[in-house]
């Protein structure tokens, strides 16, 4: 069948099962937008290309399917660099298509020309400038294959205008659709290891059988591998406590007796300390990020490490594991469970870790997450707002956040019960992530309630996408924790810069968030006192025909605790001042 590059590109997306794309057209990508009119693919017109990227990420994180964004060349491509980098850091499957000037104009500094492939090389799992129209079906298939297999990540395809413009003879091609075998043969250097090495799996099982103080350190890889069920089975079978990293919140239910919550710089005292005192860390799809380990040379000094990851480069990158296993976390957990059963059937017994469990429970009792409720008439405590949001939302509600204090409080106080209910920017820490990511999540899971918890600083970075939400009838809900500051920076300046506040004050009422939200077509309410919190949330939860914005005026002096100060080991957890031992 004779076709042209633009039509072939859209057809290829349809063949890949793409149901929705996020994007914004422009000069170089015009010919690709024309066949979108006839396509069953839903196109969501964003207000800024960064929004398209984060929406694609939110879509991918909530559904497990690759998010797709289409934008034009030059400034549009540079605007989507941040989401690409974010997706790369958090291993989010995403395919981004950028327009490019005609092949013959590349290198001439043509209008809206940018070296997109060069600029995005370091922030994509792979990228490709498509040179010929006939390559489009194969390269699109490769892109989806690469984005979704192995360690997932973003792939960018840069599409010169001449190969998609039907009036240009360069765009002519005969349609074809490559088979899986043809795709594999075209990528001789790409063969992710899926199955774990049997000897290593045996060794891991042996280590687990011998451990007295084991901790499962579950990372985002559990969610990527869709291994939440298997993780639970392993934990319950071995009675091993589980910490879930910022990227893995929801991978293990927070209300499970074995769950210790989030580890790391702002993790629970118990999660941090259990890792620190353990004699075996079972790292599953986690990467020993600096925010988890604190000062590395003092991290979990007595622990042997089993490290399971699909990316061989993660094994030994930070901490040298005693048992490195490359492969898919789900398959490997299944194999480890099988091996443990074999050992058990052979008469071996799991060690009695009752003492360890009771030590851990002691920490949980002594150092729960805590905050002091506000006095009547004082500003709201952000933690209280989070508790109320959680209590009044369905169990499977999806929550997205921006980056900063509000993100940490959301992770701490949102009791996660289900996988894929937490959407956030972990590795890159992109302010402004929440609103577009929540929109993308709601598009992917229209059956679920979706809340974005945002800071006032973050909200101002990407709020315009609420126009997109209103126009496209995507009823997300946004809670702004407005403390009139860049809160996390303020916290560091208060604690580590002798309260010298440099450029962190925003304003409680400029902009007027309620008016702004209303101008964007949202229902909006301002909440200033504790007794208004619950009713306002209930009102917001009842709205289903448009986005809602609740502005909560919160106490700027509130800090995120616990905290391990930067540069110190995880032995130095600063707990909430109310929990400090009397001096």
């Amino acid at each position, binding site marked *: 069948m004779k076709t042209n590059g633009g039509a072939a590109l859209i057809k290829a997306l349809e063949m890949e099962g793409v149901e929705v794309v996020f994007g914004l057209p422009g000069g170089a990508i015009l010919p690709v937008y024309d066949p979108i009119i006839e396509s069953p693919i839903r196109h969501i017109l964003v207000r800024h290309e960064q929004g398209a990227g984060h929406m694609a990420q939110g879509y991918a994180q909530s559904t497990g399917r690759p998010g797709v964004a289409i934008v034009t060349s030059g400034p549009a491509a540079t605007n989507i660099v941040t989401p690409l980098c974010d997706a790369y850091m958090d291993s989010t499957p995403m395919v981004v298509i950028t327009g490019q000037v005609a092949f013959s104009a590349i290198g001439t500094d043509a209008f809206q020309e940018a070296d997109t492939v*060069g600029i995005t090389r*370091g922030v994509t799992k*792979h990228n490709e400038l498509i*040179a010929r129209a006939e390559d489009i079906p194969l390269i699109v298939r490769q892109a989806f294959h690469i984005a979704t297999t192995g360690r997932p990540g973003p792939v960018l395809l840069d599409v010169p205008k001449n190969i998609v413009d039907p009036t240009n003879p360069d765009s002519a091609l005969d349609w074809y659709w490559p088979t899986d075998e043809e795709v594999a043969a075209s990528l001789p*250097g790409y063969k992710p290891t899926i199955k774990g090495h049997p000897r290593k799996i045996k060794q891991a099982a042996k280590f687990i059988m011998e451990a007295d103080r084991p901790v499962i350190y579950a990372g985002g890889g559990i969610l990527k591998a869709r291994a939440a069920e298997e993780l639970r089975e392993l934990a319950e079978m071995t009675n091993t406590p589980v910490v879930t990293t910022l990227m893995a919140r929801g991978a293990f239910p927070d209300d499970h007796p074995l769950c210790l919550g989030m580890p790391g710089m702002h993790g629970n005292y118990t999660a941090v300390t259990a890792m620190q005192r353990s004699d075996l860390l079972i790292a599953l799809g986690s990467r020993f990020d600096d925010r988890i380990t604190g000062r590395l040379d003092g991290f979990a000094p007595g622990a042997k490490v089993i490290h399971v990851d699909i*990316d*061989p*480069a993660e094994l*030994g990158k930070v901490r040298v594991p005693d048992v490195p296993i490359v492969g898919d976390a789900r398959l490997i957990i299944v194999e480890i469970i099988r091996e443990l059963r074999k050992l058990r059937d052979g008469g071996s017994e799991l060690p009695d870790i009752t003492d360890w469990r009771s030590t851990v429970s002691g920490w949980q009792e002594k150092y729960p997450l805590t905050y002091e409720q506000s006095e009547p008439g004082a500003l709201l405590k952000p933690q209280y707002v989070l508790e109320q949001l959680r209590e009044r939302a369905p169990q499977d509600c999806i929550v997205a956040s921006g980056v900063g204090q509000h993100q940490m409080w959301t992770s701490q106080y949102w009791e996660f019960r289900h996988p894929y209910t937490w959407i956030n920017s972990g590795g890159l820490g992109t302010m402004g992530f929440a609103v577009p990511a929540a929109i993308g999540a709601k598009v992917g899971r229209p059956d679920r309630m979706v809340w974005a918890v945002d800071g006032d600083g973050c909200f101002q970075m990407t709020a315009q996408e609420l126009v997109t939400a209103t126009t496209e009838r995507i009823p997300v809900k946004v809670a702004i924790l407005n403390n009139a500051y860049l809160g996390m920076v303020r916290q560091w300046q208060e604690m580590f810069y002798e309260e010298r506040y440099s450029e962190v004050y925003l304003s409680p009422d400029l902009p007027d968030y309620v008016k702004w939200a209303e101008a964007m077509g949202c229902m909006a309410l301002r909440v200033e006192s504790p007794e208004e919190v619950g009713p306002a949330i209930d009102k917001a939860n009842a709205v289903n025909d448009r986005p809602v914005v609740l502005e909560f005026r919160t106490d700027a002096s509130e800090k995120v605790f616990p905290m391990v100060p930067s540069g110190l080991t995880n032995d130095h957890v600063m707990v909430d001042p109310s929990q400090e031992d009397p001096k």
Partner: protein
Amino acid sequence: MSHPTHPRHHVLSVLVQNRSGVLARVASLFARRGYNIYSLAVAPTDDESLSRITIVVDVETAPLEQVVKQLHKLINVIKISELDPLDSVERELMLLTVKAPAGKRSEILELLGLFEGNVLDVGHDEITVSMDDDPERLDDLENLLMPYGIIDVQRTGRVALPRLEHTRP
């Protein structure tokens, strides 16, 4: 100048798909991860769809294992072998222009003869010579010519292949 056979140098032979941008991917990976390339040579193999990049890596900046694993993540990289200098054959080409006034010329030519180098060009009081050999032998010639006054040196960076089995398996 640090010697190319310095213990912290390792030779990686990287087989890649011969496509535009692959060298840039390899080079930017090194830059992005903070690794230092000591020398680099690239050319297509007998199979034109493939190229071989021979990289001498300064691995004081990062453990070699991490360099190799990161390189493997590039989609266009097919195979990486680390070549132990003891188990591989290596060659490098050097062009060198040295001062060679009439009184010194025969000494220089004698040296060049000992190293089995060639004269490429002769000027009024300088000559350009070439030599391809083990990188260490090139160093030796370069050092020996130093006192005469080297005007220009261009070296290609080393290329290498594994040594063959010499006995019937």
